[in-house]
């Protein structure tokens, strides 16, 4: 059974330990701005929402990449950016309707969540279990997928 990141905003306190873990693992320094997961804060409502790639099966980023730099990691289900192949054209950053593929001007490449090869650091760092890594069919990604279907230009059903 493949696992997915399960996010429960109700449990999130907004501490961004997930962003620290992600950026340290990927960049070797503590730098939330380079994190692949981002906590959105709705101050007026007292709500915090950790937000990252759902590794959607439709993978607009993968389909839009002109040089085949985003590929499927069959073991984890993650869509992974191959740095050596990515030319930094940023087409994936506008194609992904979730906004979870971002351009890193320092490297000239795009960055996105790759599930850390199957052991996501964000989930391990979360002090409140707002982010867990569990069997895919238990996750509440439905909400995001519902939105994905709205985004879709009518193409996914048969593809």
């Amino acid at each position: 059974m493949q696992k997915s990141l399960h996010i429960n905003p109700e449990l999130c306190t907004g501490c961004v330990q997930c962003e620290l873990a992600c950026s340290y693992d990927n960049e070797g320094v503590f730098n939330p701005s380079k994190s692949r997961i981002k906590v959105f804060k709705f101050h007026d409502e007292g709500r915090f929402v950790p937000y990252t790639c759902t590794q959607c099966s439709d993978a607009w980023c993968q389909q839009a990449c002109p040089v085949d730099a985003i590929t499927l990691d069959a073991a984890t289900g993650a869509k992974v950016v191959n740095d050596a192949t990515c030319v930094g054209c940023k087409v994936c950053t506008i194609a992904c309707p979730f906004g979870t593929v971002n351009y890193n001007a320092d490297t000239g490449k795009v960055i996105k969540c790759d599930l850390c090869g199957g052991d996501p650091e964000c989930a391990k760092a979360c002090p409140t279990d707002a982010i867990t890594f569990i069997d895919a069919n238990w996750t509440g990604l439905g909400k995001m997928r519902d939105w994905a279907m709205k985004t879709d230009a009518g193409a996914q059903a048969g593809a």
Partner: protein
Amino acid sequence: MAWTEKILRVDLTKGTCTDEALNMEWADQYLGQRGLATKYIVEETDPKVDPLSPDNMMIFATGPLTGTCTSTAGRYSVITKGALTGAIACSNSGGFFGNELKNAGYDMVIFQGASKKPVYLMIENGDCQLLDAAAHWGTSCWDTEESIKANHGDPMIRVASIGVSGEVGVKFACVVNDIDRAAGRSGVGTVMGSKNLKAVAVRGTLGVAVKDGDRLWEAAAAGKKVLADNAVTGQGLPAFGTQVLMNVINETGALPTRNHTGSQFEDAHAISAEAMAEPRASDGKPNLITNAACFGCTIACQRVSSVDRTHFSVKDRPEYQKASGGLEYEAAWALGAATGVNDLDALTFANFICNEQGFDPISFGATLGAAMEMFEKGIIGTNETGGVELKFGNAEALCAMAELTGKGEGFGAELGLGSKLLCEKYGHPELSMSVKGQEFPAYDSRGIQGMGLTYATSNRGACHLRSYTVASEVLGIPVKTDPLETEGKAGLVMAFQDATAAFDSAGVCIFTTFAWSAEDLAPQVDAACRGEWSAERLVETGERIWNMERQYNNAAGFTSADDNLPARLTTEAATSGPAEGKINGLAKMLPEYYEARGWTPDGVPTNETAQRLGL
């Protein structure tokens, strides 16, 4: 590594921004933030300077751990000579500003001089500009933060600003970041206002590197586990916030009530954490919406609250019906017990106004309590208060005065003097419940003896955050001591003072000390910072910082006579609860403390002490 080793010097008189190297020799001795910034002030300014003159320096400083994965390590402090106290001031704030400053490439920003016209400082990854703040002057911290973000087109910009209170010279104005986090005490916002500096806006995406990231990761994880397993930091604070203390301290008989005329509040429950969680009549929702965390904090003690939409304070004012920073214990005490007001929504609203216009709810509530006592005694009347019946328990008066003080209008301008000047003005200095001009926080030192010594000797005036002996005397951390006893409190206060100075200077939150000792912090500092950092070195660094602050205050003109408490606490016995019949035994504790410190009987560090600490 850990430090960016770069500071920004802003000369507001000349309008210049200059990068300079951090003095790493000082960093080795004073760590960062509180300690290191104070060192710069000691070295570069005249301690007799008028806090509001351009010659007073103001520093925004991070610690070496700020911005790292260590739990709670997002903090910064504003260090200056305090407008309220005339003593060294260091006001610490959480939220997300400190880590942003570090990520922008700076350990600290030094402000000197004063601008001719209102400006704000914009820092973006090492690019620094002083920009015209004419459009922001006269607006609140909330509006300033929102409009700076919108004008620069980046919602991720972090802003620390002053409200109108800081512009108009309210003596206890603070610096507010992230809407409801504040460098709150001693009038650091007043100093900022005197420099015509409206805000500091920061965007940083450079990252924070440390000496040994993997080792820090391990040490930080161990530290987080200690916090999670501790009853206070793992359960009490996340669930109830600091407000968990309201009923506890009331039962201890140490909840100062109605300007310290009593030490128990009969309506404490109505303004407690438990009350914040109870569904209210109008909409069935509780005052408390959720808890929340500052940057990197695995405790998450922050309260997010809303005021009942039908409450008189926010009716037809939708801007105050939203969720925002809820009551912490000290604010709830000052706005509630100190004024005798038992209306939780009124307290929450007044707290919103403190955040919106940037002034310290502790000093404000305590000053209002003093004014209420003067009103009840007939020393002031409705002529002075603009027609307001300033009686204890008047919730409408609390809300109205909060709004007036935020803008420095009407009687709010007088409250903005702080209790010391206000009570002196009306001929009753004995009614000011303060030390070195700063109002007490929420612990009656007749019921918790160690806090009397804490307040009297605090380098920034009366304060609980310089040595929180409540932990030991009430909660039994690290060991239980008798709150009604003075025996042993000198050593206890000293140990807490030194440890706190080290924790502050490292860049972590003082609340970690409910669970952490220096033994827990040291491995994290050691993994992050150059050199070797043991628990002993941390505590010694704390002691060095404490003594340096003391020397500054002595040079500024303070003497042992200022290490004192209002007569009410040392001559009028508590009238109820466990402390009934007790006064504070400062006279016994203070000489013991001086001796333990290695100070002369006049409270001056001896040459031997100074030499031992490298001062």
